[in-house]
């Protein structure tokens, strides 16, 4: 259990990507995987299954809600939708991620760090 996120980039990254995808439009699990892989130009090889523990965590935290229905291709699917608190969380995460990313790039690019 301690290594739940070991296949992720960093803890919470997968959740963040899921929330971001769902913010654009509700989707079911399979569509989410497709979406993340396409958007990242297949740079991120997300193991498809690892989506589900993350979705359950989001469900439990009430950041997303799920509903059974039919997809556009007429399949029975469980569609996930972001909630209001999910949106708030996403914003927090993005801003803290950006801060972190900024920090990392400063460290990785010492030239810029000296001039600033």
């Amino acid at each position, binding site marked *: 259990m301690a290594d739940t996120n070991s296949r992720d980039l960093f803890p919470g990254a997968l959740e963040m990507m899921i929330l971001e995808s769902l913010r654009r439009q509700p989707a*079911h699990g399979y569509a989410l995987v497709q979406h993340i892989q396409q958007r990242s130009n297949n740079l991120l090889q997300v193991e*498809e299954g690892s989506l589900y523990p993350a979705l359950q965590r989001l469900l439990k935290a009430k950041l997303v809600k799920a509903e059974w229905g039919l997809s556009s291709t007429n399949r029975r*699917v469980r569609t996930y939708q972001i909630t209001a608190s999910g949106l708030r969380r996403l914003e927090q995460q993005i801003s803290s991620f950006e801060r972190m990313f900024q920090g990392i790039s400063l460290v990785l690019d010492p030239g810029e760090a000296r001039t600033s």
Partner: protein
Amino acid sequence: MNWIPQIFRRRKLYNELSEEIRLHIEERTEQLVREGMSATEAEQTARRAFGNRTLLEERSREVWQWPTLESIGADVRFALRQFRRSPGFAFAAIVTLALAIGANAVVFAVLNGFFLRPLNVPQGQSLYAIQRGNDPYIVQSYPDYLDLRDRNRSFDGLAAYTISQAGIVTGNDPSHAWLYQVSGNYFDALGIHPYMGRLIHASDEHGPNSAPYIVLSYAYWHSHFHDDRGVVGRSVLLNKHPFTVLGVSPPEFRGTLLIFSPDFFVPMVNSEQIDGESFLNARGTRWVFEVLGHLKPGVTQAQATADLDSVGSYLEKTYPRDDTQSTFSLVRPGLHGDFVAPAVRAFLAGLMVLAGLILLAACANLGSLFAARAADRGREVALRLALGSTRTRILRQLLTEALLISLAGGAAGLVASVMLLRRLSAWQAFPQFPMNIPVRPDATVYLFALLLALVSGLLFGIVPVRQVFKSNPYEIVKAGSSARIGRKLTVRDLLLVLQVAICGVLVTSSMVAVRGLARSLHTNFGFEPQDTLLVNTNLAMAGYPPDKMPAMQKRMMNAMQTIPGVTSVGLVDIPPLHMGWNPSYVFSNRATDMRPPNAEGQAIEYRISPEYLQAAKTVLLAGRNFSWHDDANAPRVAVVNREFARKFFANRSQAVGANFKITDGTLLQVVGIVEDGKYTANLAEDPQPAMFLPLGQFPSGETYLVIRSGRDPQQLVAAVRSTLRDLDPGLPAFIQTWNEEMNGALFASRMATASLGVLGVMGAMLSITGIFGMAAFSVGKRLRELGIRIALGAQRKEVLYAALGRAFKLLAIGSAAGLALGLLATRVLAYIVYQATPRDPLVLAGAVVTMALLGVVATWIPAQRALSVNPLVLLRED
């Protein structure tokens, strides 16, 4: 609190999850088929892309759980399934642990009851008894007690009590009872409140014999007054004196001496009516059994001791004749100061160590069993690792199994020990005393057992850990569980050696104890207890004044003499090897200052009738015996033992006719010398000087009739009883054989031998199962190799050596270590069990033979299995 509906929602959640995942893979498969893959290929690719479905589902479910708790639940269920599959293993393990933990709990409960738990009075922690200087006897005189009570500033009231016996008449029949004579403030100083009626208070005392009151103990009220609530205010006769029942003490209060609880309590100021004589004003006579009290809050032990010492120096100055060297120290009450405590403590500590060793042996045993099981389950473990289980998870599973076993064993052991302890605390080991063995288990004992169970579970559960961490799933699944036979010493081997060594210690020490006890039963006591009845009477209890006692005692002896079969009858005030004895100071014949420091030494004093020596079969070596002419009108005389003559008269041949003085200044002439014997209630004593004084000159109200007969003394009891009743129906008597009476003296060695014997048997059983397990395991692992050896023409001897050589080597090393350690350990034993010496060829031989036998018994079945290997059958298998 949304977790309650969550639990009910869970099944739905899980089902939805599985469905969702199934649909996911299905969708992916369809997609791939559309892209041109074959159906099978597409499904495989979809599954691979998805990842470990079981693991991911489990992780998803964990989101909704208290993960640790529930997976532990799963571990427990899995462990229980495992045990159901091998019930023999589980049963053996649980029984082993139950025995080991039970033994530890019992020993600990006794240790706890005697030493760790304070006396059962309010604030027992701050209760201390006062000991005089470094003298292990903590008795005080009554006037000294009063001074200590009134002059100290450290105690919240100092109480005193002393143990006495009395005849009590409540209805028609007189009976014999044990009581505490207590100071008026006794109950108040201890903080005891009545169960019924009221207790004795300081305000009841108005000088000698002013408080004829009696407080019954709950147990005595229950057994002798049948819980009669109307007893308060009733009058009873104590030694023919009327006493009024004030009330009943609470059931949990059983006196202030462990082991010995009184039937009732009477004020000490009335001691003349109880004892027949009064020492209330005798400052030099120390008869008050124990002085004790609660320290005031904030007063340290050192401050209290200093305070008492200042009272002591006042006493020294004011009463230089009686109170020499009056320094004091504090001791824990309950075991009569430093007098009995150290021996008991040493023995119990030793027993605790042995019990601990037993548990360690059991853990070693179970540890190797678990290691063997883990090896056998190598394939299962490997599969689980290959399927993505983590090693921690597998270890937790193994530890769960170990802890389950240890907790079950601990619970079973605790139940058994509680039953045993209940019996023990109700046990009346000596019919003549009311006993109070304070070993009822309490929370500490339960906690101790639980702790032991957990620790031992972890101990033997941890053994296979390294094995699991090293295992390579790929190798194991490919090659089957590793059957490598290492030449190097494994942990399991060390455990086995350790265990055999522990067993060796136990076997050796229990044999030493048994031999010592057997020898002490055939030692020369200086009297012959066989075929002899002891009849204990106390004329003071029946109201005889001292001057009428000798005549009555003579009548009793004469009457006993007429009973058919009786060969001789004698009288003694306290028989040798009784629980109590009277040490007296011996002074030279020129001494004028009779203070203890001026004494030549101490001797144990006996008061006897002339017929005693013959009835007890004590051999007169020189001089003459007493006669009834040695009475109050004749010069005072004494018969002494050989040790007395050696110690106090340089020239032994001149001892007869020599003179010496005793504390009251009386000059005595030695008229005879008898053989040495055993006197105090400890068979291990060194030769002690003893003197015998004629009852005619030194009367005693309490006496024992020594009745020797030619037939079974038990058959005489009825006749003795009716003869006594004819003489005086109001005289209570206690009758038992001398051998029974001596049980008291042998009690310590008997208990020691019994407990060591039990531990020894347990140790032996444990090492048999341990060696058996190891031998069976190694034979089982090497059956194929043995088959090849036999096929290649190996002889029986060679096969046996190959199969069991290692087990035997370990056994030999362990036994040797165990014997050596055992012989060292028995030095401690020698303090308790008389004549316990390890330098005894029989013990050595016995221990060696026992260990060898254990080895043979334990390896018999595996050896048979190794020899009956059929190479053809074995080699044909896979």
